[in-house]
């Protein structure tokens, strides 16, 4: 049984909570500024594309900060005593901060329109945020764990992984937003009972993607980072 360290747990929980709250505030400000770019009557899809870009960009910055903070000090593998999570620890804390951000967003939606409608975000919006956060984390992992290679070449070698992770996160987020607003699959959304079917299908798809990405994250970042450390 491992020892429980309440002080460290409280500090890390506070760090994740504050980071999630700051992420929410940053997105409010950035999306408010982004809204100024659009004149009345602008295409809704363009607005949503920009907002998804802002959100995923902010999340990428947050995860990068967490990964570098905990991963930079991660030891190279030197014997059994050097077994550390390193960057995976920082990325996990970053994902927890994104989850806090999603919870605050749910609460804000509930405050704006009280009712069980906000509970639907637990099946749709929150998994979307988590899927995108996991995709970003997997893309960032080679960079923050030093797997990209020696200094100087690390970022260049990790760039494709980062771009791939960001593209997946952005595409998933944008597709979910467009589907929720009826811009994607409008016939399915406008059919009788279509909203419920769309919510159910989206929830299943989100759950499947989340399950697959969690397994991949555990194998690649957590177990792989623990066993192999830096190259």
């Amino acid at each position: 049984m491992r020892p429980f360290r309440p002080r460290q747990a409280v500090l890390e929980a506070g760090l994740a909570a504050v980071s999630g709250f700051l992420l929410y505030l940053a997105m409010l400000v950035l999306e408010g500024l982004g809204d100024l770019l659009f004149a009345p009557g602008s295409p809704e899809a363009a607005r949503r594309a920009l907002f998804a870009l802002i959100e995923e960009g902010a999340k990428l910055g947050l995860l990068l900060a967490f990964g570098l903070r905990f991963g930079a000090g991660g030891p190279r593998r030197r014997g059994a005593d050097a077994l550390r999570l390193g960057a995976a620890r920082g990325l996990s804390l970053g994902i927890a901060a994104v989850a806090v951000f999603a919870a605050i967003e749910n609460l804000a939606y509930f405050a704006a329109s009280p009712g069980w409608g906000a509970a639907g975000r637990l099946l749709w919006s929150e998994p979307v945020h988590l899927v995108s956060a996991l995709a970003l984390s997997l893309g960032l992992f080679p960079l923050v764990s030093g797997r990209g290679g020696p200094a100087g070449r690390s970022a260049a070698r990790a760039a494709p992984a980062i771009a791939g992770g960001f593209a997946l996160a952005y595409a998933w987020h944008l597709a979910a937003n467009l589907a929720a607003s009826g811009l994607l699959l409008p016939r399915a959304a406008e059919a009788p009972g279509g909203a419920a079917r769309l919510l159910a299908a989206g929830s299943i798809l989100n759950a499947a993607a989340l399950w697959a990405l969690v397994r991949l994250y555990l194998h690649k970042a957590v177990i792989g980072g623990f066993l192999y450390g830096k190259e």
Partner: protein
Amino acid sequence: MSRPAGPAAERALGGRLLRSCRSALLARLAAWLCASAIAWSAGNAAFLLAGAPEAAAMGLLILLASLLPAFLAWPIPEESLRAALRVSDRDTTFEAWLEAPPGPARDLLELRAAARAAELELETPPRLKPFAGLKPLAASALAALALFELLALVAVGRPLLSYAPPPAAGRGSRIEEGGFARPGEADPASLSAPREGMEEAKAEGSPETQAASREAREAASEEERARALYESKEKALEEDLALGDAAQKSAEKRAGSGGSEGAGPEGQKAAAPMAKPAEGRGTERARGDRPAQAGFEAADESLAPSPLLDYRARFARVYAERTRDAVEASGELSLGRLRDYERRYFESFALSAGIAPREEAYAALLKRRWRELGGKP
């Protein structure tokens, strides 16, 4: 550092570590349940004390459910992974293989790692223990739930799963005051009364049986009163007949003796009041509280009321109904107008319509219509 070449060794070691990760995730789930129970109890208790709106509990529920991914995403503890590695790699076969630089020694170590991986697949994995803080956390959650239920019992009188705002003030006061229930509506206080209370009520007489016995007593007293009234009326009638005979005899005697005082019916009527003074009620009548019906015991109850009074009462009621509550006939109308209204209200339609005295109104109407149609009488 090179990755393990043997897929069997990699799969075996990864499987053991993944099992440790799953155990850690289950521990997170338990920690989330405990922390949510504590937060739920504390939040609902605060809502109960502060009288928060009903949506507050729903908002808290959504917040707690939203925080589940944060618990699951929490970093897997390195110590649990390290313990799982130590258990699976007691002779550090995997460690030596992972550390070895490429060369002949590494090939030999890889063979040993593959053999160890084959053994691992046959071994039963050790039972993983939860982290040390889970038991105190679970105990705290149970204590928080118990405290909240205790508070709910004190504040609301029943256990609560979720905060619900108290009912309207009127209903609450009605329950507290022990019953201002509408007729036919069951009082919640009486529905929730304990069995002991029902036994006590049965011993003392329940409200229903008390009401029934009260009605029975009232009916019996009413019957006794009616019987007494009938008897007194019968007795007074007999006395009246007896006195009438006596007065007639004395009048005849006085007529026979030539006296003119009180002769005839007038004399008989005048003699009657003198015959038997009302016992005990004479003073009441003397004060004028009731219309004087002298000469008979309880005459005001036994005799029919004056038709004139009845007509006036009927007219007053109709007048009050038509003028609603704004006007009272007796208080607002002068005596002359009151008589005029009474006359117009009760007067004969036949007189006002100009119908012959012996002719019926309906027959007169038919005749008039017949004439209007050009028919001959």
